[in-house]
């Protein structure tokens, strides 16, 4: 099983973002996804900046996949999407059927992102027929689901699962970060840039629950399937996705890339009490089954 780094979901400034990916380039990670997936109002990095980062990573031997917007509401967002799809060099991650449609028209293969609603094998087979090369499992699905779907017949597409990071749970027309600051979305002043990990939101009993990231709502807890990696590899998952959350990712990537998969049960990676892994076990996503060994 290889490691992949999902698209950055937060709005970091350009300098920090470049520093982050320069550090990523020096790790042994296999695949890096690049691109704005949340909000077209975020313009800290432009298309050419992403291409520059893509070349930088590619030159260091990383596979680069350009990620596309999740919620596409306007003609201008479709123009930008088309531009990404028409790049001659890199594969794309389709996070909306719009991207699937345009990729198919351009006859280029695509990675089916986790927000496409693909919930059974027949759906995956349709996607594969029209160009899907890799399937990223929707976040709320489980090990049992994936085992069933992969067992139905042999497949030529790869599979990827979010293994570490905050879970994207929902997308809205409303910007919750701007709302929190009593600003209208059209005059948001990119206030989300002040929150490099979103706004941590907790219940009135101080239980961390959500993370507000512009129009996206994430889990307060990180999904952490590091102790399940051997299991994941055994059922045929090709990529373990890490979702960017800060420079601490670099140490994690280095640690995980040095692991001999057979010895995974012996690893000692700190798992804070508020991590979660419920979805993997077919339970509420926020649940944590502790130290389940294979």
């Amino acid at each position, binding site marked *: 099983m290889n490691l992949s780094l999902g698209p950055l979901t937060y709005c970091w400034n350009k300098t920090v973002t470049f520093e982050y990916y320069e550090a990523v380039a020096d790790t042994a990670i296999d695949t890096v996804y690049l691109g704005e997936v949340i909000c077209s109002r975020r313009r800290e990095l432009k298309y050419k900046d992403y291409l520059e980062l893509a070349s930088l990573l590619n030159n260091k031997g990383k596979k680069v996949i350009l990620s596309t917007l999740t*919620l596409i509401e306007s*003609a201008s967002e479709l123009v930008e999407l088309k531009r990404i799809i028409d790049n001659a060099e890199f594969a794309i991650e389709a996070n909306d059927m719009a991207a699937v449609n345009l990729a198919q028209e351009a006859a280029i293969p695509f990675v089916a992102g986790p927000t496409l*609603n693909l919930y059974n094998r027949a*759906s995956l087979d349709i996607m594969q027929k029209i160009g899907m090369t890799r399937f990223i499992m929707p976040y709320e699905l489980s090990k049992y689901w994936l085992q069933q779907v992969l067992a139905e017949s042999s497949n030529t597409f790869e599979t990827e699962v979010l293994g570490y990071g905050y879970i994207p749970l929902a997308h809205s027309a*409303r910007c919750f970060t701007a709302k929190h600051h009593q600003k209208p*979305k059209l005059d948001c002043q990119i206030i989300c840039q002040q929150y490099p990990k979103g706004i941590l939101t907790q219940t009135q009993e101080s239980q961390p629950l959500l993370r507000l990231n512009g129009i996206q709502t994430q889990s307060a807890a990180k999904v952490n399937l590091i102790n399940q990696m051997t299991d994941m590899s055994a059922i045929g998952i090709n990529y373990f996705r890490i979702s960017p959350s800060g420079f601490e990712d670099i140490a994690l990537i280095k640690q995980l890339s040095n692991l001999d998969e057979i010895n995974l049960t012996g690893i000692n990676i700190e798992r804070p009490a508020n991590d979660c892994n419920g979805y993997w076990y077919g339970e509420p996503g926020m649940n944590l089954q502790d130290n389940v060994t294979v």
Partner: protein
Amino acid sequence: MELLCPAGNLASLKAAFNAGADAVYLGLKDDTNARSFAGLNFSAAQIKQASQLAKQQNRKLFLTLNTFAKPGHESRWQQAIDLAAELHLDAVICADISLLDYASRTYPGLALHLSVQASATNVAALSFYKQQFNIERAVLPRVLSVKQVKDLAKVSPVDLEVFAFGSLCIMAEGRCQLSSYVTGQSPNTGGSCSPANHVRWQDVGTDKLTRLNEVLIDKSSQSEQLGYPVVCKGRYQTHDEMAPEYMLESPTSLNTMSLIPELAQAGIRSLKIEGRQRSPAYVTQVTQVWRQAIDCYLQSPETFADTLQKKPQWHSALDKVSEGQVTTLGAYERQWQ
């Protein structure tokens, strides 16, 4: 412009037709639709009865199949499509591409409406579903402004249906996992958002606590009007703000009556009323008011705004059956976003 109303049972279906619905949507008594609640929905025999009633009265009937087929259980969803074809229902409302594929290949004559759970919000996504499965209509997620709806209607390859009234889902439908994060069940997988068996109300002193799978969604006074507890309508705190706040949305319902002229001029094919889980009395009340409003507009489009002013009783009737007794234009209005 069609008035499309919900029915969770035969009494609601009759209520909807009597009050002037042009069409009704309903679901089977199982997890093939996202209102899978005990005591709600139709058996196959009841759908047959409903379909006879609809034909007698020259109204339309759509079968809602808006969840995603579970591996190993696909036949349940396919049989629902078979039933719709056999009874010559007017359309199936569907989001799962494997089911759209099955229906379009097996029953080319069966009209397909793309469910809101498919999250299609733009012309390229709509084109995908049109090209692949020949859908006739799509239901738009409640994330577009009225200007975006109008722009999309100009270029859409299929008819468009929009939500006109009812509980307000503030996320792009079909892609919201807030419910499964807390309860393990989502509309896509389990057939309902915020399932009732996970809800618990608790009285503590003068406070009323609302819990969803033990997570505290809201704390209110006993007298406060509460909506049905969902994660997106709870009151929470942040690290820098301890005063509880509706961080996402407060309990409120969608009401787009003032937008009827704009939606009609944009060529919107159908106005959908939410609420298959609601009572026949709700269906009657809401359908009657919307029937009058649409008829008023069609008879005299230019005076509709004035009529609306002179009919505060329409709004008060709708407010009474609304969550939190408050309504909003939601994402249709830029300011809300």
